[in-house]
């Protein structure tokens, strides 16, 4: 197991265009702090699920990794090379071959006037990777075949309108595969698709990981999808990572109130029994504007468990064992010793813990206080 990508204190701040009046009054330039200092390591061969509401900065993080957006500060280290300063088409050619992006909307990603073959072959031509037309065609057909569009020759010369949503997303995946990448950044690849087709694509992505030794950064707003596909889950809120750890740990024993709330509202097809609806923690409001990040813990205005310290001091990521970290004062080693553990405080988390068989013993703080 080796490290493939490391982000160090990554920040992306977008300047807010100020009006003439503000310029005259010499107001300081304001920024949207889309990504506000995250550290993240992706191991070779793993699937890291990056989960967050819209406006949490998860997509911006993905765009920085594929170098579509410039970071304000911080370092990006890919395969032991610092690529933070790498810019320009020529310099990025090799990097872009190794790191590919899958977009959310297969209806908009594909050019309606381009055949599937041309779409998949384009990156090869642009990067001048395979100059020979015959060889290029073989590569394209191979990629289509890997993406499950079989027989590939049937699909290669169709147009996007002739395909269903699931097939289109397979084409987009083929377009990423044809470059033979090492890291694939998938930005909400299944959220536009029906549930029944979702499974197929998740299945496909995991098969491809096995076949081609891919590593995924899987960006999604849906905790359940992340849980299905990811080895580790990172939960983002307003540009910061709130909690990160093994998928099981994050879902089964959330140490951050935000994660716990997300888990409690995660969609489930179980009909609600009397009482289960009450166990949900619905946070009021929406992710606040990243231009006005609250002081202290940025989650405190919506946090059901916030106390004095949360309003003034921002918690760092505390280790809670098993490679599981949470940025919450309640996860601080001392705080937990005092019995302020999250599952005890959050009734819904406690209720859920009870529902889970004892198969996943949680590090410390496990016992819900009666």
């Amino acid at each position, binding site marked *: 197991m080796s490290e493939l990508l490391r982000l160090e204190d990554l920040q992306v701040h977008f300047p807010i265009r100020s009006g003439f009046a503000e310029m005259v009054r010499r107001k300081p330039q304001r920024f949207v702090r889309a990504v506000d200092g995250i550290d993240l390591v992706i191991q*070779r061969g793993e699937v890291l699920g990056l989960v967050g509401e819209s406006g949490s900065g998860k997509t911006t993080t993905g765009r920085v990794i594929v170098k579509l957006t410039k970071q304000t500060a911080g370092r990006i280290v890919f395969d032991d090379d610092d690529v933070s300063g790498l810019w320009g088409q020529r310099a990025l050619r090799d990097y872009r071959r190794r790191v590919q992006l899958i977009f959310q909307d297969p209806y908009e990603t594909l050019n309606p006037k381009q055949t599937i073959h041309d779409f998949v072959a384009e990156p090869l031509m642009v990067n001048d990777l395979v100059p020979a037309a015959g060889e290029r065609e073989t590569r394209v057909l191979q990629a289509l075949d890997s993406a499950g569009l079989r027989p590939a020759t049937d699909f290669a010369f169709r147009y996007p309108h002739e395909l269903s949503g699931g097939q289109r997303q397979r084409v987009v995946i083929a377009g990423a595969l044809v470059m033979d990448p090492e890291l694939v950044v998938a930005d909400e690849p299944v959220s536009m698709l029906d549930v*029944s087709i979702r499974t197929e694509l998740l299945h496909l992505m995991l098969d491809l990981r096995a076949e081609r030794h891919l590593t995924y950064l899987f960006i999604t707003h849906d905790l359940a999808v992340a*849980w299905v596909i990811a080895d580790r889950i990172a939960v983002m809120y307003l540009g910061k990572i709130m909690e990160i750890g093994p998928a099981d740990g994050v879902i089964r024993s959330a140490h951050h109130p935000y994660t716990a709330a997300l888990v409690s509202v995660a969609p489930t097809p179980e*009909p*609600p029994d009397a009482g289960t609806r009450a166990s949900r923690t619905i946070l009021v409001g929406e992710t606040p504007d990243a231009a006005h990040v609250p002081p202290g813990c940025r989650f405190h205005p919506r946090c059901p468990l916030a106390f004095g310290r949360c309003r003034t001091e921002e918690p760092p990521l505390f280790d809670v064992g098993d490679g599981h970290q949470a940025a919450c004062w309640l996860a601080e080693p001392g705080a937990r010793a005092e019995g302020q553990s999250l599952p005890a405080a959050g009734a819904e988390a406690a209720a859920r813990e009870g529902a889970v068989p004892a198969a996943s013993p949680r590090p410390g703080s496990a016992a819900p206080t009666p």
Partner: protein
Amino acid sequence: MSEPLEAGLASTPSLPSAPALPTRDAEVRGRRRWPLPKQADPNAPLLVVEDLKTYFSLESGTVRAVDGVSFTLRDGEALGIAGESGCGKTTTALSLIKLLPANARIVGGSVRLFGIELATRDEKGLRRYRWREISMVFQGAMNALNPVQRVGDQIAEPVVERLGLSRDEGMKRAVELLELVGIPGDRVRAYPHELSGGMRQRAMIAMALACYPAIVIGDEPTTALDVMVQAQILELLERLRHELGLSLILITHDLSVIAETCDRVLVMYAGKVAEEGAVATVFRNPRHPYTRKLLAAFPDIEADRRTLAVIPGSPPDLRTPPPGCRFHPRCEFAMELCRTEVPRETTFADGVRLACHLYPPGSDGSLPAALAGGASGGATPAAGPPQTDALSFRQLADEALAEGAPGHFAGADHGLAPQRPNEPSPPLTPDARPERER
């Protein structure tokens, strides 16, 4: 929300398709703001749809988008219509108030609201019912609002047009409605782009409520929203339903939304009803192979092991639907009969209505051996190679994690999953579903 209504619902969660008490119907109807339409039969059920057929004519043929759908909606009830895209669920809803595109036509069946036939009415004849009795929250709140008109004006428009109130009164009502759905009243003067996604969806709901309708149809009301906002919107719908005595029709491919908010569920496949019944009954004990697959394919963080089913193939082209049962090409239990004969809808003792040859009309509706066993056994030789691809990668991942190396299962180990097609997938048997905390 201490309505007697809610208490009644909560205390009878497992009643088989609880036939709503007439008293409840009367109670809900008693809260109406307006008298019933003149031609209404006061004793008729709220909405009865019978054998509805809506076809689209294209150059390349006729698309039978809705092909014989029947259901009943009672006062104060929430009905969820589920199915994959292209199964005709939106067309069914649009047919109720005939908001259909120009090339679509209702070719048969009836839609009766308070006993009044709507399917045969012309545009003018429908004015009394559109929005005043049946309103709609359209798909994609981002695009359904007019970007160059203030939200308040858009909400006031149906009030002014349909109820004949003055503009000032309309704006007053708009403020009231915004506050009802949880938006500060002073936002009436906001433009849609000044509102967040969740607030726009709330504004759409406010608009649907403008004329105190009896039925609100929500077409994928939460699909484009974040999970937390989705939970907020569902909670809002639930509250409004009880406070205002609304009846809801929720159209969604997301079964969790239906589990969360609806009393009954109607699963559609290729323009027909596959299964219909009380949510608790159908979701705990799904019978139709399609319903079972849909439920098994749903990623659920409450399930203990990640075993997701795949529904092989894609929905049929409705210009040339397959003969017999329309689901048979994708059904692992398809028999010879399924290929030739269209299954008839049968209602079983617990109120579940089904169209599947595995449950013939005379049977008691219990699980056939083939399904109970999970995998396609010898009972269905016609099924050919088993098409289930039980997806147990989570399990594999967990095993690999237990061995201490997350990178380890990236290689050969994971390749095991596709080689285990015969593994019975736990979600298929109801008892294997994880127990939930009471």
